[in-house]
């Protein structure tokens, strides 16, 4: 039998789906139960679902009311939970929008959950009451950035923290000017749709909050430094597309960034260590010999003198430094004028001769008139004095006596004298002090006694003719020396020593005097000594990194460029020798070594060999650094060279790969 054949009564047509309750009886009998004629129950169950009849049916909730019940209960549970948590001391763990990065999380690990938010968020109260309290103003006083800096002030200066690139506006503008000015140097680039009004930054460049770029609560392993190129460039008026095509071309990077050691890779590679004939050359010219890797595969910028230079350069350098530097040398003045200075050593009388030694000049300057007088004499060279001019000779006398006074003072007061004078001339510096320290006061006092207090009578005869002058005057003696000089290869230092030696021997032959102090013999390791022939106090250096010579150079580097002393010091052989390899030292105080650039100063561009050394092709340095045949250095590395690997696909070309945001001037 088909189910269609079944005939059932029509279902009840009366129902009220809007009501809360439906008569349970209706569901069974299909019609409302009639209690009596007027059908009390016709009204159905009461609002509370109670059947009005004596023999009550059990009314059922309608679907609508059931639905309402469920909805209400769930909502109530939710609200209750909210209130409970907001008050409770677990609120941080409940309400944090995401995990902190591991580093920050570790810092907060100790603190109570209820105080975790407050660690960074000023006035962080989760209680619903405070949401609607005007907390806005309070935030202004202590911002999130300030909280960041409470820990990070070591790396980023508070004052400049909010400035774009941590640089004051004028510096940035200067840079921009520079960029605009040498626009010619910059390659034509494609603004591949990047440059549009929509890209204008939303930032005030004078107050950039940390949270602008460093977004926290992005998960424990999130990268706080992640930045897209577009984000980097949003402030920039010039924006770039791909590195290969649109990055500005640089001129000589990475070279000429204050290399502290003047090392001519070209000559060394080509001339001294030609890799062609290895047989001839004792050592092969290997980059890694001077630029060894450390354990992190990072290349060191240079190695010690001892390791790489000494073997070839030590002797030569010693010879140059031997000649050392003068502290002090008496000039020669005519007898006529010598009279004006009480017992001026006859050895220092004759026609004008001698120079004021640079260091002495510094000390002599402390007396005004002397300084003036010295200025009157060309290059402080007495030979240039024209004897007929009155004032020059007067100056000469003044200077000469000044020398004596200086010597006298030191003899009496010792180092104090020098220190005072230094103070007067206002060039007290550790390096100068270091020089003063090295000068033995007894030597000075002895010198003073010997030159000025020992009665000149005894010395008069002996004093003339002065062999020194002989040496410099009579020519025939020098002839042989000329040959010797010529024959001798370019070692200039050694020959006039020979001259001295030569006339030293002559001395002996002429007069039997006590044997003169010979620094080459008695002062092998260098130090101060008195040269009685030249009436000078001289320092003999001892090769590389001599402390006094170093100090002298450092002291010199502090002097202003126009100061004649500086120029004259530079001419002195010992100093020249140092400056030849340490060009920076003359300019910048104490810049002797080449500190590693990696992680040194915070400049815009950063580079590390480490990742590059992992690539087989690049382990050979010359792959990038090709020694130039033209000039004394390398060919610059072209953008294209980098661009071969640094593309979006391969090594990455995002700004942050090579550039820093946080820089220091």
């Amino acid at each position, binding site marked *: 039998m088909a189910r269609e054949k*079944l005939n059932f009564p029509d*279902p009840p047509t009366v129902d009220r789906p809007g009501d809360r309750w439906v008569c349970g009886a209706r569901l069974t009998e299909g019609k409302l139960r009639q209690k009596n004629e007027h059908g009390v129950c016709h009204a159905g169950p009461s609002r509370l679902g109670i059947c009005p009849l004596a023999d009550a049916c059990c009314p059922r909730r309608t679907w609508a009311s059931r639905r309402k019940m469920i909805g209400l209960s769930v909502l109530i549970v939710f609200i209750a939970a909210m209130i409970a948590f907001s008050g409770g001391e677990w609120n941080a*763990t409940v309400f944090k*929008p995401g995990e902190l990065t591991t580093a920050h999380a570790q810092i907060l690990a100790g603190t109570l959950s209820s105080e975790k938010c407050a660690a960074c968020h000023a006035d962080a109260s989760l209680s619903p009451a405070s949401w609607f309290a005007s907390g806005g103003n309070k935030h202004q006083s202590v*911002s999130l950035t300030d909280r960041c800096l409470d820990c990070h002030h070591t790396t980023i200066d508070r004052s400049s923290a909010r400035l774009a690139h941590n640089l004051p506006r004028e510096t940035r503008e200067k840079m921009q000017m520079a960029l605009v000015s040498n626009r010619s140097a910059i390659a034509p680039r494609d603004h591949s749709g990047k440059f549009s009004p929509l890209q*204008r930054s*939303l930032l005030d460049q004078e107050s950039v909050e940390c949270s602008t770029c460093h977004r926290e609560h992005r998960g424990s392993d999130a990268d706080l430094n992640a930045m897209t190129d577009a984000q980097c460039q*949003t402030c920039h008026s010039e924006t770039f597309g791909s590195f290969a095509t649109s990055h500005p071309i640089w001129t000589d990077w990475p070279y000429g960034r204050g290399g502290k050691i003047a090392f001519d890779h070209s000559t060394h590679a080509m001339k001294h260590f030609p890799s062609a004939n290895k047989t001839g050359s004792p050592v092969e010219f290997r980059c890694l010999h001077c630029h060894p890797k450390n354990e992190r595969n990072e290349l060191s910028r240079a190695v010690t003198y001892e390791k790489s230079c000494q073997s070839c350069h030590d002797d030569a350098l010693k010879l140059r430094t031997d000649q050392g530097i003068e502290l002090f040398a008496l000039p020669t003045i005519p007898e006529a004028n010598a009279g004006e200075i009480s017992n001026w050593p006859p050895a220092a009388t004759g026609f004008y001769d001698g120079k004021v030694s640079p260091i002495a000049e510094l000390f002599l300057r402390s007396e005004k008139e002397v300084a003036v007088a010295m200025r009157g004499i060309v290059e402080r060279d007495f030979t240039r004095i024209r004897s007929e001019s009155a004032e020059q000779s007067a100056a000469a006398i003044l200077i000469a006596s000044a020398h004596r006074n200086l010597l006298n003072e030191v003899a009496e007061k010792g180092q104090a004298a020098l220190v005072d004078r230094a103070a007067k001339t206002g060039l007290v510096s550790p390096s100068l002090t270091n020089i003063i320290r090295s000068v033995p006061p007894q030597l000075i006092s002895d010198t003073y006694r010997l030159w000025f207090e020992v009665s000149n009578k005894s010395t008069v005869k002996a004093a003339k003719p002065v062999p020194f002058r002989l040496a410099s005057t009579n020519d025939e003696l020098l002839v042989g020396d000329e040959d010797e000089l010529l024959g001798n290869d370019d070692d200039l230092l050694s020959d006039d020593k020979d001259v001295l030696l030569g006339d030293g021997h002559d001395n002996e032959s002429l007069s039997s005097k006590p044997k003169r102090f010979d620094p080459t013999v008695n002062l092998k390791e260098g130090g101060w000594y008195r040269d009685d022939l030249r009436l000078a106090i001289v320092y003999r250096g001892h090769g590389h990194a001599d402390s006094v010579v170093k100090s002298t150079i450092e002291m010199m580097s502090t002097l202003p460029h126009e100061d004649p002393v500086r120029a004259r010091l530079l001419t002195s052989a010992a100093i020249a020798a140092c400056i030849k390899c340490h060009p920076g030292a003359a300019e910048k105080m104490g810049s002797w070594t080449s500190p590693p650039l990696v992680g040194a100063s915070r400049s815009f561009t950063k580079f590390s060999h480490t990742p590059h050394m992992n690539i087989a092709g690049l382990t050979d340095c010359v792959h990038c650094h090709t020694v130039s045949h033209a000039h004394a250095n390398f060919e610059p590395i072209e953008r294209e060279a980098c661009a071969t690997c640094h593309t979006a696909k391969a090594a990455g070309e995002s700004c942050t790969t090579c550039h820093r945001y946080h820089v220091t001037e």
Partner: protein
Amino acid sequence: MKRFETISFRTRRIIGLSITAIAIAIVMSIHQSIEERLGRASYFSGFSLFGALVALILIGIRRRLPMLPLGSVSTWTQIHLYTGIFAAVIYFVHVPAMIAGGVFECGLSIVFLLVTASGFYGLYASRMLPRRLTAVGGEFRYDQVPWHRNQIATAASGLLRSDHESAATEVLRGFYAKYLRPFFESSPGLTYVAVPTGSRRRRLLAGLKELDRYLEEDTRSTSGQFAALVRRRDDLDYHYALQFRLRIWVVVHSVFSVVLFAAAMVHGVLALRFTF
């Protein structure tokens, strides 16, 4: 509006989808640009998401005010539907991770996903299930299902109240007492409501068929009527199960959408308070 009422469903779908796509594209591009300009892109996406939520909630209000001329609910459903799709996409633009860290945020995202999922299921169900309901004969209103059930049960119990007794009647009565009565007088089990299958019906009908050889003419017709009742009852239960499904998802969806809305507001307040 009237035009909207008269265009065919297919074109309406196309229009709706394309408008949604455009809206999504616009919002995403603006979000992108703000992100690049180092602005607070999450504010933008967050507020547009919140706006979408408000628009989504509105349909509930419209539903509860049937007497006011606020546009037909079916129109609102369309708006709701496409706004829902919009919101679902914008959600993924807005959140850093699909399920955020932190208990509250995690809960919030779970609730959002739950509501979204239920919404999409609802879309599927309300388009697919009605056809299945129509295919099965008979129209049973959900509130009247108990009544219909009761009718069938009484009819079944009435069938055997015949005056003259016979061996066959005994057999049939036995079968009725053992299998049919529990079937007729109990409401369907949870498993059936969850997954309505024909196995129950087939089993019972097979049982009745099995019985046929023990019956004679009139009892056979009675068993035939039993079979009809069984089929009818099965149809009823099928209707019940599907209609229940069609209703329960709405309950889940609407209830949690209210929770979602409240939670979203809390989230918004927190976000605004704790940005700087």
